[in-house]
């Protein structure tokens, strides 16, 4: 059933074109979605050194699913389900590795601070803000897998609960509950920061 595949779902269009034999469509898929996959992996796994390998693994699975792909949902929903499965495998394979990557404080791999730009040019302020960002990331990393992915998709990808449900294989109601619990857990873990925030 081609529920969501309309003109604006460029991913599904490219995937179908590739299925039909347009080999260049795969290049455009990688070009268009590798950054999003990388960002989602980073949000979920932290600054793990395996991120680029995992991006490759995601598209390897896309290649293997070429013949079986059916546009029954948005392309990103289908793609993020692959990402989620890989992330869960990764956390089960090497528990604690993500925490270690979060503990590695300081600038990111590419030397950029990866915090919101409104810190301005003040290095001290930027450093202090990086501390808060680190605390937020650590709190997110401690969430259970499903809560973490639901929160990341809802908060940072603006994905509707229904689509998150398709990614995680759960109902819309279950996703609402997951996101609510994730936020409650974060509130508890970030309580010192939040009390300051409210003052």
């Amino acid at each position, binding site marked *: 059933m081609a529920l969501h595949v309309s003109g604006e779902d460029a991913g599904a269009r490219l995937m179908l074109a590739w299925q039909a034999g347009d080999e260049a469509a795969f290049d455009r898929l*990688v070009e268009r979605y590798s950054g999003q996959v990388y*960002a989602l992996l980073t949000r979920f796994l932290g600054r793990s050194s395996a991120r680029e390998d995992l991006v490759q693994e995601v598209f390897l699975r896309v290649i293997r699913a070429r013949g079986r792909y059916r546009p029954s949902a948005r392309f990103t929903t289908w793609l993020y389900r692959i990402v989620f499965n890989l992330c869960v495998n990764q956390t089960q394979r090497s528990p604690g590795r993500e925490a270690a990557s979060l503990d590695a404080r300081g600038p990111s791999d590419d030397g950029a601070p*990866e915090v919101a730009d409104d810190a301005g040019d003040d290095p001290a302020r930027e450093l*202090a803000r990086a501390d808060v960002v680190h605390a937020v990331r650590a709190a997110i990393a401690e969430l259970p897998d499903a809560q973490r992915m639901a929160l990341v998709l809802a908060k940072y990808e603006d994905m509707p609960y229904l689509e998150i449900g398709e990614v995680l294989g759960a109902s819309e109601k279950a996703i609402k509950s997951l996101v609510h619990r994730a936020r409650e857990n974060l509130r508890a873990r970030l309580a010192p920061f939040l009390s*300051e925030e409210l003052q």
Partner: protein
Amino acid sequence: MNDPCSRFRSLLEAALAGVADPPGLARLGWHAHLLGCAECRDLLEAEEALELLLASLPEPKLPLDLSRRVVLRLQAASMPAAGALDALDALLDLDAGPRVPPGLARDVRRRLEPELARARAARARPLVHAQRWRRAAAAALLVAGAAAGGWWWLAGAGSATAPAGGTPTARVPGVPGELDEGLLAALEVLEVWAAFEKSGEELASYLDLDATEQVLLDFAGELDWDAGRAAGR
């Protein structure tokens, strides 16, 4: 206060301010003015005692959460609408997300090239599939021919040797009574046909596999064949 006292105290102030050369109060202890001025001598001793006391104090430390307090105050000042937002969302929004490494897509695409080439090669093999179907069809014809021949022999040529006035019968171990030979032949044909259908299903499921899985299966088949050949040697 006379002029020598004023000059000495100027030197003392410079030493305390750290601009004397050399710095510190030690050199002033030898100043000639002190020999005749008890007031300046007492003043120097008091300053030296104070310096010692200050030096013995522990290094002041910043509160552990100072940076966090500062950043939150700054954040509150820079986000006038923050009060209207959920405080948690305001914290989560501080993380602007990762920067994607430049050339990521190109690198990923390059590293996937061998897999893509394998998939392309597997997709370009419809001829092989056609050959497999032709082989299966030939085998089916052969089996059907053999079955028809058997049927003909049992029903026609076989009946010449059958006892007069009766249908040929056979006894099957484990089955009470005698079975009609014609029925047995029909069962045999059905058995052969079921085996053929099974092999047909296997072939169809093979054709449903995607390209990568076919390549893997072919590779495994070649390994088995090689192993069998080695064992036969």
